[in-house]
Structure formats: structure tokens, C-alpha cells
């Protein structure tokens, strides 16, 4: 069975600059798929290729097994929710939503019924006669979604739809989007630079960087087993530990001679040989930080002495930067009763940093430049 929607070997360049390279991606019917990446990574270009605004330099776009690469946007059963809404300022909310139906020459009763249903869906029935300028940002956003959905597209494209909203409204709109998706069941292709948005909304995520699709997977897969240092650092925060394989313990573990931390035990989720250069990513919340040396099993977990360099109290958790040997490590600790803890760790304290072997993940690809994406004490 062919994929529902497919980018097949898509490549695109503006002039001589490649903006999208060799992208292969299939979407399942009814899923919410997010493309995330920093600005300029090519995700919006890919979205515009799907919409038909851009003809890719190479490759094909398939919908339900049919090649639609050369179809202009007005002939595709794909609709877009634009970044700045792009509501027609001269038309009322009702007429904005009705636009696609009127162009398709639907009968008056059909238009009234379909638009009415959409207004119910987005809960704006009493605002039908207003002009877009009279609506709030969140309301405009909902009209933009209704205007696209009323045409019953096979695929709905959302281009940074929440970028113009403030934080609280963004969180509400995420829930709203989730509800709308549940009601209509349309396939969503969602583009955003905000990884938390993508994580909370999507069935699957694709991470893009410099025109390439680096990794595709469920939010948990992407977060828990990033393949490259870019994905690890862009989705969430992490620490990189670089070193050489010293010896293989058994089929599950090996000992790494880390550049700064000395010998540590690492979970062996990929085949390695002694002497290999390896990078491991360890998320800050995987560590535990104690004042006294914990009684750990050196076979399955690691414990290193460290010094607290920075403490940032964030409410639900506390963020620490600790230094062990020469490596600065970011640590996040949840706390149940911070004030009641006898003496919370403070700047300059000596402490012990502990984590299990399988808290770290081996990366397939590591680039030092990606360290710049990590949160640093002076940020």
C-alpha cells in the first residue's frame, strides 16, 4: 500500500544555494506530524513544496500514491494555515471561511451549512460578521484553521501557526488544536521551531537541520534516543561526554575512557570495538546530586565527585552547573520539599554526581558546533 502522503527524494535550491536536500518522508493518514528545526533549516520550504507554492528542483510529492508535484496550489486537496493568518481583511469571518467553497462554486445552502459547522467547531459563531481586524490573535488563528479545514483537505499544513501568540495563549491553542484534530481527523503537517510545541502535539516528529531531515520518530524516541548531537541538543537539553572505548564489559555495557570524567560505564546500544571514538549524550534530569558519596554499583552506574558552580532555582526544579575535572555538566533536580531539605546544595559545595549506565545514549554523529545549542550558565 502506498503511503498516504510522501516526499520522495526532494531537493530544492534557491539560485545555487541548496535549501532542502534529499528529503524522504511518508505521512500516515490522520496523524499529526511536526517538522522542527531552527529558522532557515528548510522546513518552511518543504511545507511550501507540499502546498505547491514552490516547485522542487528535484524529487516528487505524492498524495495517495498520485504524483502532484506539478499541480498548482489551487488544484491540490491540501490547505494551509499561514504563519500570520493571512486572513482577507476585506471579508468578514464568515466570508473568509466561505472563500474556498465559493471559489469551488458550492451551492448557497452547502456554504451556509459548512461554514456554520466550522464556526461551531472553532466556537466563534457569534463573531461571524466581524472583520478580522476586530478579532484577537487567538480568534484569528482559529478562523485561519477553519478557513482551511472547511474545504475538507486531505492534508492540512500549519506554518508556525502559534508563533505570533504569547506564551499562555500558545498553550491554550495547543490544546485547541489537539481537540480540533481529534474532531476532524485530518492529517496535519505542522512546522515549528519550538520543540515543546512539536512534542506536545505530534504523533511523530521530524528534526531538520541545514536542509536535511536528520531523524524521524515519536516524541519519546526523539528525546530518549537522539541519533546525532544536533537532535540531542535541539530537542531538550543535554550533556555530551566524549571519549574512547577502553574495554567491553559484556554485551550490554562497555567502559569509556572519557576525556574529562575518567573511566565510566556506558550502555552499549550500538556495536562498538575497543579504541572507537564515542560520544554519549546524558540528559540533565538523569543525574542525581548528593552531598555524600553514594554506595553505587560500579558495574551498572557511575559516580564522580564534582563542585557546584551555579545554582538556579526554577520553582518545580533546580538547575545546577557542576564541574567535574574539566567538564561543565548541566544537572536538573526535582524537589518535593525544597525548603524543608536540611541544607540545599549551594554554590561552591563539593558533591557527588551519580547516573546509571543506561541513562546515557550513544550518538551516531557528533559535531562540536552543536555544543552551542546547549543551555549555558550565562544564558
Amino acid at each position, binding site marked *: 500500500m502506498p503511503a498516504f502522503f510522501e516526499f520522495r527524494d526532494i531537493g530544492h535550491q534557491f539560485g545555487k544555494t541548496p535549501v532542502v536536500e534529499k528529503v524522504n518522508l511518508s505521512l500516515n493518514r490522520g496523524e499529526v506530524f511536526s517538522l522542527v528545526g531552527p529558522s532557515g533549516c528548510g522546513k518552511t520550504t518543504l511545507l511550501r513544496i507540499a*502546498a*505547491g*507554492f514552490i516547485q522542487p528542483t528535484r524529487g516528487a510529492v505524492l498524495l495517495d500514491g498520485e504524483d502532484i508535484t506539478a499541480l*498548482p*496550489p*489551487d*488544484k491540490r486537496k*491540501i*490547505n*494551509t494555515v*499561514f*504563519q*500570520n493568518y*493571512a*486572513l*482577507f*481583511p*476585506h471579508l468578514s469571518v464568515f466570508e473568509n471561511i466561505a*472563500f*474556498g467553497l465559493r*471559489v*469551488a462554486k458550492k451551492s448557497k445552502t452547502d456554504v451556509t451549512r459548512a461554514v456554520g459547522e466550522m464556526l461551531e467547531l472553532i466556537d466563534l459563531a457569534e463573531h461571524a460578521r466581524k*472583520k*478580522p*481586524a476586530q478579532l484577537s490573535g487567538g480568534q484569528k488563528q482559529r478562523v485561519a484553521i477553519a*478557513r*482551511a479545514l472547511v*474545504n475538507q483537505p486531505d492534508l492540512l499544513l500549519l506554518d508556525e501557526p502559534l508563533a505570533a501568540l504569547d506564551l499562555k495563549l500558545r498553550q491554550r491553542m495547543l490544546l485547541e488544536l489537539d481537540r480540533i484534530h481529534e474532531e476532524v481527523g485530518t492529517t496535519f503537517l505542522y512546522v515549528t521551531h519550538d520543540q515543546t510545541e512539536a512534542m506536545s502535539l505530534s504523533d511523530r516528529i521530524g528534526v531538520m537541520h541545514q536542509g536535511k531531515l536528520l531523524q524521524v520518530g515519536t516524541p519519546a524516541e526523539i528525546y530518549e534516543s537522539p541519533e546525532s548531537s544536533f537532535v540531542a541538543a535541539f530537542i531538550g537539553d543535554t550533556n555530551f561526554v566524549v571519549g574512547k572505548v577502553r574495554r567491553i564489559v559484556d554485551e550490554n555495557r562497555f567502559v569509556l575512557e572519557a576525556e574529562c570524567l575518567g573511566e565510566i560505564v556506558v550502555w552499549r546500544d550500538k556495536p562498538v570495538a575497543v579504541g572507537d571514538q564515542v560520544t554519549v549524550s546524558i540528559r540533565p534530569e538523569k543525574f542525581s546530586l548528593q552531598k555524600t558519596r553514594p554506595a553505587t554499583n560500579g558495574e551498572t552506574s557511575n559516580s564522580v565527585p564534582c563542585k557546584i558552580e551555579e545554582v538556579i532555582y526554577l520553582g518545580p526544579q533546580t538547575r545546577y552547573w557542576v564541574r567535574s575535572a574539566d567538564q561543565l555538566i548541566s544537572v536538573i533536580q526535582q524537589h518535593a520539599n525544597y525548603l524543608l531539605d536540611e541544607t540545599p546544595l549551594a554554590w561552591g559545595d563539593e558533591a557527588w554526581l551519580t547516573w546509571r549506565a543506561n541513562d546515557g545514549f550513544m550518538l551516531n554523529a557528533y559535531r562540536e558546533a552543536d555544543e552551542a545549542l546547549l543551555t549555558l550558565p550565562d544564558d
Partner: protein
Amino acid sequence: MKRSRFPFVATTLILVFLYLPILVLFAQSFNDARFGGSWNGFTLKWYKLLFEHRGVITATENTLIVAVTATLLSTVLGTLAAWALHRFQSRMQKVHQVLIYGPLVVPDILMGISLLLLFVNLSVPLGLGTVIVAHSTFGLSYVAFVVLGRLQEFDHSLLDAARDLGAGSWTTLWRVLLPLLWPGIAAGALLAFTLSLDDFVITFFVAGPGSSTLPVQVYGMMKHGQPALINALSVLFMSATFGIVLASQFLLRKRYD
């Protein structure tokens, strides 16, 4: 900090300076005396005489024919030009832009004499046709200028949105682009219309016998002394222009944000 009162006083004095001559003109048009030295009582006789003046009537007809035709021509050409300037960024558009801005910069008298030389060189007889062509030339520059200004604040994703919702180029043009641009186009057209009504110098150079417009007629009357008649004519002319300007102000202000 107490603000200086100087800008307020200066502005008030300048407004008095701007309106004083116009008010004198209004008063004079109802003055029974031939010159402004004394007030001989209220009269409407100058207006009556004006409506019986053959030259004024012909000139008014000419003015309207020229203004309407030139406005139509310059609105179509100017709007196309503005769209091309906005949409494309080729070297051709750089030349295009220089050509469009030229008539805005060049003094009227240069434009008048250069067109006269062209028409003489090509042996084109001077008449209403040459006046229309001249007015369309500067009119299209002004229309292009105004429409381009509107286009710069036009949100192009609206065109994408229309196409995305199934509209072809033609539907997009009629349902989205023109409805949104028409206040700008109309304001440009009104500007071209008032400038055509207003122009004296260029018309003076390219008009032939029998094709005098009102300003040329007024000039003749000023040279050959019928000042009281001109007062009345001025008041009517000015009222008409102010009406058009107020309408265009209203149109330009109409925005959707």
C-alpha cells in the same frame, strides 16, 4: 518640562498666512466693487456673468474631457506599472523606475517645452489630443507612486492564501487583489484627476487654438483684466477641488487594520 509655545504660535501664524488670500478671494467674489478697495455691497452678479461667458463654458468642457480621459489612461498605465515595479526586480525595472520618477522631479516648464518640441518635430497638430497625452504622462507617474505606496504594505501571503484555497489567478485578482488595492488605485486616480484640473504650465505649452482648459482661460482673463469674474470662477473651482480632495483623503484613510 514645560513645552515651548513657539511652534504653536508659528503654526497659527502660518495657517493665517495660508488662508488669508483665499478668504479675501471668497469675499471679493461677492463684492459689488470691481476692485478690492471698498465693499460696495453683496452681489451675485459675477457668478451670473460667469455662467454667460462663452470662453469659460468651452474651457470647462475641455477641462473635463481632458481630465477624465487622462485619468483613465494614467490610472490603467500607472497601476500596471506599480504592480510591475513591485513584483519584479530585474534590471528592466530599474530603468522603469527612473522613467516613472522622472516626470515627478522635472519642473513643469521643462516638461511643457520638451513635449512641445516633440509635437512640433513630429508635426502633430496641437489640440485636446496633445493636452490629454501630456496630462496622462505626468498622471501615470503619480498614480504609480500612490499605488506603489499601497502595495508596499500589502500582505503577499493573502495571494498565497487565495491560491491555496483553490482560486486561480483571475479569481485571486478579482476577489482579493483588486478589492484590497482599489482604495489606493482610486486615490491615485483622484490625484491624477485633480492634477489634470490644476495644470496650467504644461497645458499652456501643448494646447492649440480652441483647446484651452480652465487654467489657461483663467490665465488669459488675468492678463486681460476681468478680475471680478476670476474671483467667482476661483471660488467655484476651488470648491470643486476641495470636494475631490476630501473624498480622496477619506479613501486613503480607509484601511483594514
